[in-house]
């Protein structure tokens, strides 16, 4: 079984990211499943950058625990990452840049990357491509695939650039052939025949939005959500839509509501600071019953926080941000593939129930790439908003008519007889302001919450379950931690633990029919979250008497399967010892 974690590290601007990307695509095309992980500095030039690529012949659920191959372009990269290199792993380093102290635990290859690039290729910047040539030869990764990619990638820059890069690849490839191979890593062609897409979470989400019928994207640049806007700016015109960059995030969501009011599907994406600005517009969407999709690719907060690092800290804001009683839906995306289908669900819920849907992703998911089977949009049937009938338009159309479902038909401007005023003030059935009618406010609030209750019913379908179905130890996670938790659960089950994980993809309203038996049947429930206070655990404590065991991590990095696994083992010991006070925070 092949399962190999590569990590490339160096100075920002040294080609770390492009090395990682080329390796990713080559391994994917060679037939491997891929799971990448990126951390990069907030600065544009300089600062430490690294890119991790995990390749395997089976489905990958996490970035991996240890590193098999570390490529260090400079000493800082070596010092930062050598501790993660597994015993017997391989270190490839630029021998022109530094010399690491000898170690028995790993296999070292010192390659004069800089001088090979300068002297043999004549372009110092190609040292990262030289390193790819080395890896191609050393680990038996098809060089033809690298060559094909370099031609595609640099073709636009002219033949000279292509030739220099191909030459650099060969220089590395030939150089290492003269050295003794000391390690046992050999990949060769991967098992998968069918081509899969290699996409980031943000790209998958944007693609899913297009498949949902998105026509407008309004947005303001913000890390780590900007690439959604950039992708759509390029691709949306091909389908029949476009992107407008607005002056701020308030305007972005305002324009989404305007476009949606006019009958078009529209969305915006942002991160915490921008999402904070959108809160008043969310309230307007709720009150005026205008469908809208808002994506929050979370990063470390509060305030500007750590813009390029990951966290799950915006859940409270997504659920509770706003004044008044706010019927809204909060979804959390769990994997690169789920980004595609999850955003389609978001559009369907927004359209069907005429309310805002907040979709939580994060930097870890948004920026990591994975191989995914070609998405099939027909798997999610597209739902469009309810329109008034010809009879309703003839006889005194009421935009906010009380109905059994709480959903009232929504006319599109340009329709004769359908004119109404979408209201941010409390209003009556017609849409006339009713800011002093107390009983009407109660009825209207109930109408809006009827829609929310209807979402509760479908929430129970948006849940994944892994491991033991009725476990002794349950895990409830959310969002991008799904794969990591799933891998940890598998490790624990393999060792005989009674462990299962429930992973809701909708956090508000909650899938109570699924949560209740799971929680009540378990002896202990762990809730791992990348935030300090346990935001989802707090939401669940409102619903269930059990005091959940929180596992919180707030260093701007995702969980590893090992961390979750260790927690399972620890809790299992408490359970076996019959200790009642499991809730001690760790």
């Amino acid at each position, binding site marked *: 079984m092949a399962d190999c974690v590569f990590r490339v590290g160096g100075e920002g601007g040294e080609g770390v990211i492009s090395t990682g990307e080329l390796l990713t695509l080559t391994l994917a095309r060679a037939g491997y499943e891929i799971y990448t992980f990126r951390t990069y500095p907030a600065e544009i030039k300089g600062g430490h950058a690294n890119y991790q690529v995990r390749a395997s012949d089976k489905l990958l659920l996490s970035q991996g625990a240890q590193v098999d191959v570390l490529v260090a372009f400079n000493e800082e990269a070596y010092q930062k990452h050598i501790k993660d290199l597994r015993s017997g792993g391989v270190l490839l380093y630029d021998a022109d840049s530094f010399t690491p102290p000898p170690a028995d635990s790993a296999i070292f290859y010192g390659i004069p990357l800089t001088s090979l690039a300068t002297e043999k290729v004549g372009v110092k910047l190609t040292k990262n491509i030289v390193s790819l040539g080395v890896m191609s030869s050393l680990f038996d990764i098809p060089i033809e695939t690298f060559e094909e990619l370099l031609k595609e990638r640099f073709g636009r820059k002219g033949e000279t650039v292509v030739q220099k890069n191909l030459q650099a690849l060969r220089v590395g490839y030939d150089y290492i052939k003269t050295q003794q191979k000391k390690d046992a890593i050999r990949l060769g062609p991967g098992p998968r025949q069918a081509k899969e897409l290699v996409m980031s979470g943000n790209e998958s989400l944007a693609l899913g939005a297009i498949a949902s019928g998105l026509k407008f994207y309004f947005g303001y640049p913000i890390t780590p959500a900007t690439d959604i806007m950039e992708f759509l700016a390029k691709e949306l015109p*091909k389908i*029949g839509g476009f992107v407008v960059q607005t002056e701020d995030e308030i305007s972005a969501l305002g324009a989404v509501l305007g476009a949606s009011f006019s009958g078009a599907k529209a969305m915006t994406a942002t991160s915490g600071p921008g999402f904070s600005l959108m809160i008043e517009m969310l309230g*307007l969407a709720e009150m005026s019953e205008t469908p809208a999709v808002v994506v929050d690719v979370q990063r470390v907060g509060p305030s500007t926080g750590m813009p390029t690092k990951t966290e799950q800290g915006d859940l409270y804001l997504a659920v509770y941000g706003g004044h008044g009683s706010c019927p809204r839906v909060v979804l959390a995306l769990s994997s690169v593939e789920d980004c595609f289908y999850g955003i389609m669900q978001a559009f369907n819920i927004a359209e069907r129930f005429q309310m805002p849907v907040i979709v939580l992703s994060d930097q870890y998911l948004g920026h990591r790439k994975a191989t995914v089977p070609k998405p099939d949009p027909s798997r999610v049937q597209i739902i469009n908003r309810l329109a008034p009938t010809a009879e309703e338009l003839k006889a005194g159309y009421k935009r906010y008519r009380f109905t059994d479902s709480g959903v009232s038909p929504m006319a599109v401007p340009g329709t004769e007889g359908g004119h109404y005023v979408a209201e941010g003030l409390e209003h009556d059935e017609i849409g006339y302001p009713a800011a002093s009618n107390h009983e009407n406010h109660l009825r209207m609030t109930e109408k809006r919450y009827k829609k929310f209750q209807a979402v509760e019913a479908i929430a129970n379908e948006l849940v994944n379950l892994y491991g033991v179905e009725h476990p002794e130890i349950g895990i409830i996670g959310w969002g991008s931690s799904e794969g990591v938790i799933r891998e940890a659960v598998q490790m624990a089950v393999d060792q005989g633990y009674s462990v299962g994980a429930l992973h809701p993809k909708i956090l508000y309203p909650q899938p109570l029919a699924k949560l209740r038996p799971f929680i009540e049947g378990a002896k202990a429930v762990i809730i791992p979250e990348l935030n300090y206070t346990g935001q989802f655990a707090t939401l669940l404590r409102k619903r269930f008497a059990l005091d959940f065991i929180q596992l919180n991590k707030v260093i701007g990095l995702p969980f590893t399967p090992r961390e979750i696994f260790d927690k399972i083992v620890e809790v299992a010991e408490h359970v076996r010892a019959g200790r009642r006070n499991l809730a001690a925070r760790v």
Partner: protein
Amino acid sequence: MAQVKEYQGLVKPDWCPGCGDFGVLNALQRALADLDIAPHNVLVVSGIGCSSNLPGFIRAYGFHGLHGRSLPVAAGAKLANHELTVIAAGGDGDGYGIGAGHFIHTCRRNFNMTYIVMDNQIYGLTTGQASPTTEKDIRTKSTPEGTIEIPLNPVALALTCGATYVARGFSGENLQLANLMKGAIEHKGFALVDVFSPCVTYNKHNTYPWFKERIYKLEDEKHDPANFQAAMERAFEWGNRIPIGLFFKVERPTYEDEEPALRSGPLVRQPLRRTNLAAVMEEFL
């Protein structure tokens, strides 16, 4: 030609008797009737404030949204269906205070829509605080010793930000106001109609008689609206003589003109070219 009453909503305006906004509403209904635009093809978007209640009093589609945020909503609605006649409306606090950021950027984007600001130089709905256009040294509930800062100049601001139709009216000059609005709606591009719309309850300084003593019409002095420099000079006239009328008008391609996706009609009516989705996916293989 359509009749004014076709544009009258079923709700009676809740403005104070004598409020300048009555004149603005009448002028707008007159302009729409003269232009014969069917009510179901008109959208009036507003913010919050006395004047922002206007969409409820007019028979058309409306969006009565958030304080200061009428322009983003109007822009989104216009882009989705650019065959609609889109009019944003609100007050000076709404447009030049809390919504100033949206105002300047909407000017430079040159969407084909009209923005009517009912400028009473005071916050009326909150019962009388200083606004961005309150003159210096005026005592209000929030400035009992008089305002310290100088007022914002909406006409000059719109000119510098790239608005392609910049006019100012007075609700006491209804015929001229209706004509300015007609010109604004007919103009291809972003049109500002700033209107002196006196607040009879909370602004005891800028009253009808105060304006009547000072205003003069630009058209009476042979002002050339094609002359940007002249428009700028007129924009800074204040005090004993205050100009109303059309300051500036220029043809420049609108945002909608320049957006290729809109060339084959309103996007809301265009079918999705789903087959192209497969081609987009190919890029990730």
